[in-house]
């Protein structure tokens, strides 16, 4: 399980963030001693850090700068300061991403997921059971049989794949599609899913995407 460290001094938002991350199958840790932030971070050695700019004792940007001198742990700046200057500064100090409050929780999870995907190198090709899924080429291979997915179908399938064995809501799928500049509506999502199902059926995988009524879908 991936460890994510939340550096945030507002208790209520910190608790909610921890809950969000735990629900998404991450191990969420928090920082309590802001005086020795840097040492604490190194002791915990998380896989990713969510860092607020306004933290006590040391500005988040300065902390990031110091951290980057000794470590390359991915950092997402999560802040209510939504100016271009802050963003440019954070990125130049080595932040991997920059999100402003209030953010859409699904998008935050997507961005976290994207960073982990980027770190695992050959993420363009994934295997599922005896299928080889080439996300970039939008192709699923089984033995020597090849099926071609449309861009939307591949976005849906790879999201389900990345969240295997977990119920994925329609809203999550929609957010991921919109995040990839595919601004489709509810009907189109339903159509895409049924087309994806029939394509999977062609290669003998019927019913691997189950509908959970009123909740969403799950890839078995």
């Amino acid at each position, binding site marked *: 399980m991936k460890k994510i460290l939340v550096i945030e001094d*507002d208790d*209520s*938002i910190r608790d*909610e*963030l921890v*809950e*969000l991350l735990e*629900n998404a199958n991450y191990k969420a840790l928090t920082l309590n001693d802001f005086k020795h932030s840097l040492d604490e971070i190194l002791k915990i050695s998380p896989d990713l850090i969510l860092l607020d700019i*306004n933290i006590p004792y040391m500005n988040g940007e300065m902390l990031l700068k110091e951290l980057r001198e000794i470590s390359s742990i991915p950092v997402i700046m999560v802040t*209510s*300061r*939504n*100016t*271009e*200057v802050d*963003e*440019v500064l954070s990125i130049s100090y080595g932040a991997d991403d920059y999100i*402003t*409050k*209030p*953010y*859409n*929780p*699904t*998008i935050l999870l997507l961005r976290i997921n994207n960073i982990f995907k980027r770190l695992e190198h050959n993420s363009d090709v994934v295997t599922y059971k005896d299928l080889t899924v080439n996300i970039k080429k939008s192709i699923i291979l089984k033995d020597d049989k090849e099926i071609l997915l449309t861009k939307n179908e591949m976005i849906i399938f790879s999201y389900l794949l990345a969240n295997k064995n977990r119920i994925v809501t329609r809203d999550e799928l*929609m*957010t991921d599609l*919109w*995040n990839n*500049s595919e*601004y489709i*509506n*509810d009907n189109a999502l339903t159509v895409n899913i049924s087309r994806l199902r029939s394509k999977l059926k062609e290669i003998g995988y019927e019913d691997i995407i189950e509908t959970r009524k009123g909740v969403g879908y799950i890839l078995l």
Partner: protein
Amino acid sequence: MKLEEYLKDKLYIIILFFISYLLILLMLLAFSVDVSLIIAISIVIFCLLISIIMVDYLRKREFYNNLVSNTKNLDQSYLVLETITKPSFYEGVLLCSVLYDIDKSMCENVNKYREQMNNFKEYIEMWIHEVKIPLATLTLMSHNNKDNFDEKILTQIKRIDDYVEQVLYYVRGENASVDYLIKEVDLNKIIGEVLLRNKDIILRSNIEIIVENLDVKVLTDSKWLEFILNQIISNSIKYKKDRKGAYIKIFAKDDGDKILLTIEDNGIGINEADLPRVFDKSFTGYNGRVRNKSTGMGLFIAKSLSLKLGHKISIDSKVNKYTRVTIIFSKDNYYSVIKD
């Protein structure tokens, strides 16, 4: 400085002079002085009068003429003291020193208000950052407790956030200080952020989104542009037609030395009479009054931010047909030269 007016002003000296001259004349006649001597004395006296008045007039004329015309021509007329040479006569020196004192006290007064403005602006910015924390917490809470949370709550949170942003950008747009940063920005990315932000309401309102040709880079401040586009797209959503087939179409066009970004909808449109005033402060128009409670601030702020960024924003509409907002970004040749 007009000679005629000046002479009128000096009339008392001339009158006193004539009275003295008459007295002298009477005395000379009483002592039965020779006529030619009287004429000689008269000439001397009149020459004296004319030269006294003329020398005084010429000394003052240059100073006052400069003062009057410079005050008229200057953009900021309070700076006139800096443009004129120090006068050589006492009254002028006195006037200058008084003007200087007035200027100084005025500056202090203006500075006091400027400082108050800045303090208020800083406070507003700080307050907005603070209020975003509970907003973020509420959003997370609703996500974490989906079963007990109505989606309507999220809609209301988004409304609060939109209003809060409006205040923030009003303060930023009205202020003289520069707190934006121009860099090359991908239109696709910004449009994506704005659409994602409005995703739920767009889906609920059954509006189709069509994007075309957005793989374009423009020079702007991405946060400011995001706000501007959010105002325009929010309006398109707010004033959609209540029937099927509503769409918002967003497309960019490269036009040589500039890039045109157009946001088009097939909503209820804007009255021809209202059209020229939609960017005015607090203007709500027919749509704002009938359809929705409108503050009339969104487009006003969008326009003032556009002006600061150097973008042109224009609107075109036909009632019940379409509304088309176009933002024109100029390409900076200097910038592209530097970059190469």
